[in-house]
């Protein structure tokens, strides 16, 4: 069985094809090819086969089958899975086995999906290339000398490499859309509050959302519809709204700021050309959103500040890595955290602590939150005139592993993606062809709960690409 999409696979499996054989064939592919790609930190071989057998029996009994029947899902390793270690790409959590499932995991299991493995990521989701993992970098299946993007690089590589038809990622500043773009797949960052964060290991709680990744828009929508929904265990989850556009052509605004700072010429030219191609089917207009020029520094200040607080829980006493005890409690904490965290995590905790500290809080943290207000207002104004906003997902083409070593240079990769996180709006990355032989993604943003619009436009774009 070699289905092209997750929906095809589900239909074949629900129609009688063996789930066990399908899972075994994917596990074999992983064994053969993931040695090079390194998309998984943990492959759940035994539990996936067991789940597959149970689903075959369920179908045999003639029971009603779930919308993800028999579909293996690759899960980012910062989403808690009961009985399966969840490392967050960190030495700190190398042996952490959660005693509970995240709400999204409960939901996909109830929909008859199978967790096939836990995917590699930048440590604590801090990075845009999946090179910051304690478990080594993930390689891009389209060109193994290049990065897959990040931080959900393992999830994107698992889909692009044909190891799983669907994946879950999480997006704090672009961590789903960036690897989707670099690996030429579809990735959605949902509206803040659309998907429960219960069981997501937190990095920057006011910005992050779990979201679906797939090889095409329909599959992405299928997984989104399973994971979305209000959850009483997450007080930031929301009752679900829905925004529909009026009949006729969708209006797309293209901010000129999305083509300015740090955008490689090859990317800018390609996306402009693609937008021209789209102009027959959509009503496209140029806009200016001046606050976007300040989104990146505002984002990093807020994300690091929240990280310094969220990561304070890792003491190595109750769970996590514990080194040699020495001295008092404080010494022990310093020691455990010093050996448990990698360099990028340490840099962000230190800068976040700085941005929140007495004397600097107003200058950095509060000012960044005010800029967040301006960005929200600018986007709100744009959505009065347009149904969607479009631009390149990434300002650069997938780069070589080890090519970007300076932290600030890596941060600049998020310049197009962070506004959606700051404003809490949904955004999707859809493949829109190749430039210099490397994949380019088109980013579409919608107003809160406008995911339906993103999928509707996405399907049209898929056909144009």
């Amino acid at each position, binding site marked *: 069985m070699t289905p092209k999409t997750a929906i095809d696979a589900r239909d074949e499996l629900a129609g009688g094809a063996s789930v066990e054989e399908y899972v075994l064939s994917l596990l074999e592919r992983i064994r053969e090819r993931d040695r090079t790609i390194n998309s998984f930190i943990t492959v759940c071989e035994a539990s996936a086969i067991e789940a597959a057998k149970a689903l075959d029996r369920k179908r045999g009994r003639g029971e009603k089958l779930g919308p993800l029947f028999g579909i293996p899902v690759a899960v980012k390793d910062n989403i808690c899975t009961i009985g399966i270690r969840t490392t967050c790409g960190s030495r700190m959590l190398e042996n952490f086995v959660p005693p509970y499932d995240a709400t999204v995991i409960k939901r996909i299991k109830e929909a008859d999906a199978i967790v096939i493995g836990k995917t590699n990521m930048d440590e604590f989701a801090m990075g845009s290339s999946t090179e910051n993992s304690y478990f080594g970098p993930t390689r891009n299946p389209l060109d193994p000398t290049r990065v897959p993007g990040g931080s959900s690089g393992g999830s994107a590589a698992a889909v692009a490499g044909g190891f799983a038809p669907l994946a879950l990622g999480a997006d704090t500043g672009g961590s789903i859309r960036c690897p989707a773009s670099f690996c030429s797949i579809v990735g959605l960052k949902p509206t803040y*509050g659309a998907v429960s964060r219960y069981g997501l290991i937190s990095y920057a709680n006011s910005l992050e959302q779990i979201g679906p990744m797939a090889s095409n828009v329909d599959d992405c929508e299928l997984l989104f519809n399973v994971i979305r929904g209000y959850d009483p265990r997450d007080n930031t989850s929301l009752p679900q709204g829905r925004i529909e556009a009026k009949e006729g052509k969708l209006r797309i605004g293209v901010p000129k700021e999305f083509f300015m700072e740090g955008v490689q010429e090859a990317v800018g030219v390609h996306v402009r050309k693609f937008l021209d191609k789209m102009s027959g089917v959509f009503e496209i207009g140029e806009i200016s959103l001046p606050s976007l020029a300040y989104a990146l520094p505002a984002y990093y200040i807020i994300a690091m500040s929240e990280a310094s607080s969220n990561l304070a829980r890792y003491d190595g006493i109750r769970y996590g890595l514990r080194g040699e005890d020495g001295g*008092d*409690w404080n010494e022990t904490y310093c020691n455990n*955290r010093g050996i448990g965290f990698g360099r990028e995590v*340490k840099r962000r905790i230190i*800068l976040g602590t700085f941005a929140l500290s007495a004397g600097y809080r107003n200058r950095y943290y509060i000012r960044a939150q*005010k800029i*967040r207000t301006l960005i929200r207002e600018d986007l709100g104004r744009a959505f009065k005139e347009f149904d969607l906003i479009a631009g390149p997902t990434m300002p650069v083409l997938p780069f070589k592993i080890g090519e970007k070593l300076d932290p600030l240079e890596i941060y600049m990769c998020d310049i197009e993606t962070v506004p959606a996180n700051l*404003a809490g709006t949904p955004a999707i990355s859809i493949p829109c062809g190749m430039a210099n032989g490397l994949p380019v993604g088109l980013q579409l943003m919608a107003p809160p709960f406008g995911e339906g619009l993103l999928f509707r436009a996405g399907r049209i774009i898929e056909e144009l690409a």
Partner: protein
Amino acid sequence: MGEITPEDLERLCWLSRLRLSQEEKEEFLGQLNKILDYFRRIEEVDVEHVPPTYHVVDLTNVLREDEVEEPRPDEVLELAPRRKGRYILAPRII
């Protein structure tokens, strides 16, 4: 000299409960100041009369009935790297 001095870095590490190696300290100092230089770009914007947005969702407390659900004390205790019986071993206090 950048905004963060070597002394500041020591203090920030203490506040964050992080022990850095000498090599990390040397590497970080320049990097952190370079990042802060970039962050200060936000000072170009006039935000005097703009309220901050700490969160895009209006947060409210969500309460539920105080009922015991799936307690897993053993699994939780097993996560502690050092234990003695049903206790977590902690560093000495006095």
